[in-house]
């Protein structure tokens, strides 16, 4: 999908602390409507803290996070989700002893009083026919790849404006990683903006419009996916070539 240029999510000079540990040190990102933006970085770079900050699970000690021009960093998670941000958390975090259908229902929890459940279910089943076939199966009994599909489907049930995905390729076989990224691209083409946090740099940049590279809580590189792919630092640090 073509980016419209309107800023959807804006991280402005955000600092976060876990006790005395300074995690994000003044990071700024901008995600525009229609984009796929990749956030890249190694372990302990602050990627997951970024995701938690977007969702209101971690409060910034300084700086602002705004969504569609409104500050959201002081809001409860339930309110942030209701405004149109949906997470696909790291490690998928499904409800293992609930069925696929119940997991999808929980995805739509903030909009449970609104009509449209059947349409949204159809849309998710259209993307993932497997989930429809096995809708009464317990989520905990599915394979890793299937669980990832369900985690994405669950997030889509709110019809989010922005989908925040934390390490969607983690723990998946290469063939499944490709499948997941194809789906991410398809979701984006249907109109959802995507913020994807990834260690798999090559894969993430193959679908992203733009990317940020985070190291030790600071943005060290930013640019279009093409620029980042060609950047010698990235090639050396993440893609294993000089």
């Amino acid at each position, binding site marked *: 999908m073509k980016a419209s240029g309107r800023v959807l999510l804006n991280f402005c000079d955000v600092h976060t602390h876990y006790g005395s540990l300074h995690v994000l040190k003044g990071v700024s990102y901008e995600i525009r409507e229609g984009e796929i933006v990749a956030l890249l970085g190694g372990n302990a770079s602050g990627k997951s803290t970024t995701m938690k900050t977007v969702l209101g699970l971690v409060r910034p000690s300084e700086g602002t996070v705004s969504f569609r021009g409104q500050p959201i960093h002081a809001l409860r*998670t339930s309110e942030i*989700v209701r405004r149109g941000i949906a997470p696909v958390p790291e490690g998928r*975090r*499904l*409800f293992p002893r*609930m069925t696929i259908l119940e997991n999808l229902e929980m995805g739509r*929890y903030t909009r449970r009083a609104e009509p449209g459940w059947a349409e949204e279910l159809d849309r998710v089943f259209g993307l993932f026919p497997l989930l429809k076939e096995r809708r009464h199966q317990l989520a905990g009994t599915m394979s890793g790849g299937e669980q990832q599909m369900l985690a994405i489907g669950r997030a889509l049930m709110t019809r989010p404006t922005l989908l925040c995905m934390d390490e969607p390729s983690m723990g998946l076989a290469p063939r499944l990683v490709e499948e997941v990224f194809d789906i991410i691209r398809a979701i984006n083409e249907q109109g959802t903006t995507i913020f994807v946090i990834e260690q798999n740099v090559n894969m993430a940049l193959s679908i992203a419009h733009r990317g940020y590279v985070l190291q030790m809580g600071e943005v060290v590189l930013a640019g279009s996916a093409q620029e980042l792919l060609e950047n010698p630092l990235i090639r050396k640090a993440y893609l294993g070539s000089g």
Partner: protein
Amino acid sequence: MSTVDVLLQQIVNGLALGMMYALLALGFTMVYGIIELINFSHFSVFMTGTFVGLVVLNLMGVTAVSKSLTGFALVGTLVVLFAATMATTGVLGVLIERICLRSLRHVAGTAPMITTIGVAFILINTMLLIWGPQAQRFPQLLPNWRWAVGAAEVTFKQVVLFVVGLVLMLALSHLVKRTTLGKAMRATAQDADAARMMGIDVDRVVVLTFFLGSALAGAGSLFFGLYYGFTGYYIGYTTGLRAFTSAVLGGIGSIPGAVLGGLFIGLTQSLGGQLVGVKWTDVIIFSLLIIVMVFRPNGLLGAHVPQKA
């Protein structure tokens, strides 16, 4: 009476008692399932419930010297009694969570559990102050009807308790399995952080859990009053401990486990009392608990292993 008839009689007695333990065990297990806290104030909420019931009955003009009721008067009185008592104990549970436990939610270790013991003492001593140390007679509003089933006898009281218990459990089961709120409770129990990311207000789910658990304890306390015909500030401990054993036996955190454990303890109490002797009841119950814990540490149906004390 032949041995088989005696056993049958004790099974009938045990099932009615078991319902009381099950109702009480549900509160322990639901709270543990959501916030991994063993809530010892539950014993005292149960005890307080018997006095709430007493007050409700007195307000309706039913006292310890009143005759038993029949017909619409009985049904109406029972409905009001259960509704008012359950609502009051439910609110009491919510207040305990809100005032004493919420600020300790993220405190590691045993502080929250010890706080619940403190709350238990506050309630026990409040009831002692108000009602004094002597036992209070609980009005016997259920008529003393009896039916022969073989050589065993089923009393109307047992039938009422069993049916009310069953209805409450089916209602709980429906709520937890079928309603969105119940599903949110299960989701929170399975992964509270993920539930929060779905937009579920975890604090509200915890409040709801305390309300439901304490309301069921209120129903359990009416079972106690109606069954034994008395109450006192001291009744929470023994019954509460047996109900807690039921929850652990069934697998703490498991709702069907609490029901199974409650019925199991009820039957153990009545059969053990008959076959071995009433004074051995607790020895038998807690020995069984130890045996189950050694061979099945998660309890009969449990998915959780207790982490916090």
